[in-house]
């Protein structure tokens, strides 16, 4: 494929790295801390070389003390810094949940609006690399439950590159979930790519027959499913949520208003999932537009297993999306 002169071939990892690099360059208040972000170069190699470039004051390796260093991020944000805290995976973030929920999310309100916590927390989420049940879960839906924080899920190179800077401009705490299988995602990004707005969902593919609503790691799968459906003459619209809190409810209702059929693809467990929330919002706001019951494609209700075939069976796959699409179209057997 010919490459336009201002486009550059890159990866999700590189895009994240470029975003971090820009933030560290542009704002002296920004610093990065977390486990293995410095000497090791970041678990996913996102910050390799940063320790040499920015020094140990701004690229801080932390002990394995999630609660202490996330809390220190809150304190530093209260003290006028713009910390970026990296938590290795969402499963580890549970050790810091007290700080995130009882602290970061709550301080503004509890203090009657006196304090603001401009903290950004990045963490990897999701399955697909055979890391089994303590490194593979998608718990972003839990975080999206919490008022007082923003939750983002970059699923494209553009968002990997641009969401961080926008998140740093937010006066409130922001959690960015990077799906682990996306780090090697390749594609093209304009040379001058930069900050992107945070609040709006994005239609990644237009269509009129049904809506596939996805985010993060499930977006590429939804796009593949849409491609397959197109071959069968079905035009699926693919909505990338981008922001999990707040949800862009208007975009969700608009796409359902257009297609009258919705399939939600969410790697979280079905019970009490983000998909359940979206489904409920559709019911509340677009009931009379619906032509079929909303379908959800979620993870099976099991801790993510190690064996590849079991892991694959546990999480949403393109075939599952197609089956759900068949259901809402009335084409299932």
């Amino acid at each position: 494929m010919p490459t336009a002169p201002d486009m550059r071939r890159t990866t999700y990892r590189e895009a994240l790295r470029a975003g971090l690099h820009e933030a560290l360059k542009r704002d002296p208040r920004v610093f990065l801390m977390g486990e293995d972000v410095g000497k090791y170069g970041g678990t996913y190699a996102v910050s390799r070389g940063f320790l040499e470039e920015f020094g140990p004051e701004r690229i801080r390796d932390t002990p394995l003390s999630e609660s202490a260093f996330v809390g220190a991020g809150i304190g530093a944000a209260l003290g006028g810094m713009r910390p970026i805290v990296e938590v290795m995976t969402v499963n580890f973030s549970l050790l810091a949940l007290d700080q995130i929920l009882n602290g970061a999310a709550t301080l503004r309100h509890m203090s009657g609006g006196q304090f603001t916590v401009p903290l950004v927390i990045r963490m990897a989420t999701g399955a697909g690399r055979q890391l089994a049940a303590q490194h593979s879960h998608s718990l972003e839906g839990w975080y999206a439950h919490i008022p007082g924080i923003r939750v983002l899920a970059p699923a494209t190179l553009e968002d990997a590159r641009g969401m961080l800077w926008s998140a740093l401009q937010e006066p409130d705490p922001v959690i960015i979930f990077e799906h682990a299988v996306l780090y090697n995602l390749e594609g093209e990004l304009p040379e001058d790519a930069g900050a992107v707005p945070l609040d709006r969902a994005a239609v990644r593919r237009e269509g009129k027959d049904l809506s596939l609503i996805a985010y993060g790691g499930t977006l590429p799968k939804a796009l593949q499913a849409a491609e397959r459906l197109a071959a069968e003459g079905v035009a699926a619209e693919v909505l990338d949520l981008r922001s999990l809190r707040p949800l862009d409810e208007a975009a969700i209702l608009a796409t359902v208003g257009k297609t009258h059929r919705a399939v939600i693809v969410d790697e979280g467990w079905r019970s009490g999932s983000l998909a359940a929330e979206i489904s409920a919002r559709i019911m509340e706001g677009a009931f009379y537009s619906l032509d079929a019951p909303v379908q959800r494609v979620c993870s099976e209700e099991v801790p993510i297993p190690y064996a590849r075939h079991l892991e694959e069976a546990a999480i949403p796959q393109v075939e599952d999306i197609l089956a759900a699409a068949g259901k809402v179209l009335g084409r299932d057997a």
Partner: protein
Amino acid sequence: MNPASVLIADELGAEKVFDLLRLMLRIRRFEEKAAELYGETKIRGFLHLYIGEEAVAAGLIPYLRPEDAIVATYREHGHALVRGIPAGAIMAEMYGKQEGCSRGHGGSMHLYDAARRFYGGNAIVGGGQPIALGLALADKMQGRPNVTVCFFGEGAVAEGEFHESMNLASLWSLPVLFCCENNLYAMGTHILRSHAQTDLCLRVRSYDMEAESVDGMDVLAVAEASERLIRAVREEGRPRFVEFRTYRFRPHSMFDPDLYRDKKEIEGWKRKDPVPALIEEMRSRGWLDDARLATLEAEVAREIAEATAFAEAGTWEPVENLLQDVYAHRP
């Protein structure tokens, strides 16, 4: 009164010692009024009184600079008062009025004041310590010579967050003074029933941090140690740990029937009550007479009456504002 405190009193002089008395008395009378108002259902929810422990906040906080930061616990009315948050704003907060120092969003356990760098009011035991680290880190990275003081009880020493924080503060050389108010009880559980090693300083020293214990029932001892330790943290840019051995005379909260300790034990500690002890010492030095004490009591009573009137006259935040302070910009 400890023998060494005689020398401390000499050093401080009559007026500074009188100031310490005034601070303790303000806390004592404020807390008594709060308990009374709780009985009248003016104050609801949890109410944790500081009565018996006044010497710690009164002896320490005056040695901080306005730029220094304080992180406190849910038993923090005394700390807030000494830091200078007006009694009326605290009382109004406990009433749930919007004139309260947290607009009635926090109540007794969540007093905040940004201008005075008073960061609450944390009701998760151990939860304030990581935040104190971050405040100190921000000061350090921005080259500000400030000290962060973090208060907590001995119950917090059992929390993982405590040990994570000790390690990180020492590892990163953060200017934090960790103040353990050891009142022997984590709610109703005695330290002997919750800690394998009750020498808290010994445990902290394993993090390569200097630690010492001070009689928290003696405001003069607290004052001496606080002045010295705050100065050390500021000058060395290193954290310190201090254990104030103290006791609360009241139950844990207004819900607590106090079944887990002997009334004799309470009576024994009341004999060390820091307020009469200081009054006694001052009288023996001729620094205080009945008239001056009565004047002081009247002054404190007036302040508290005014604070209560302020809270009574306060207004309820309109329900329309309910979602106002969740985000800076409502999404």
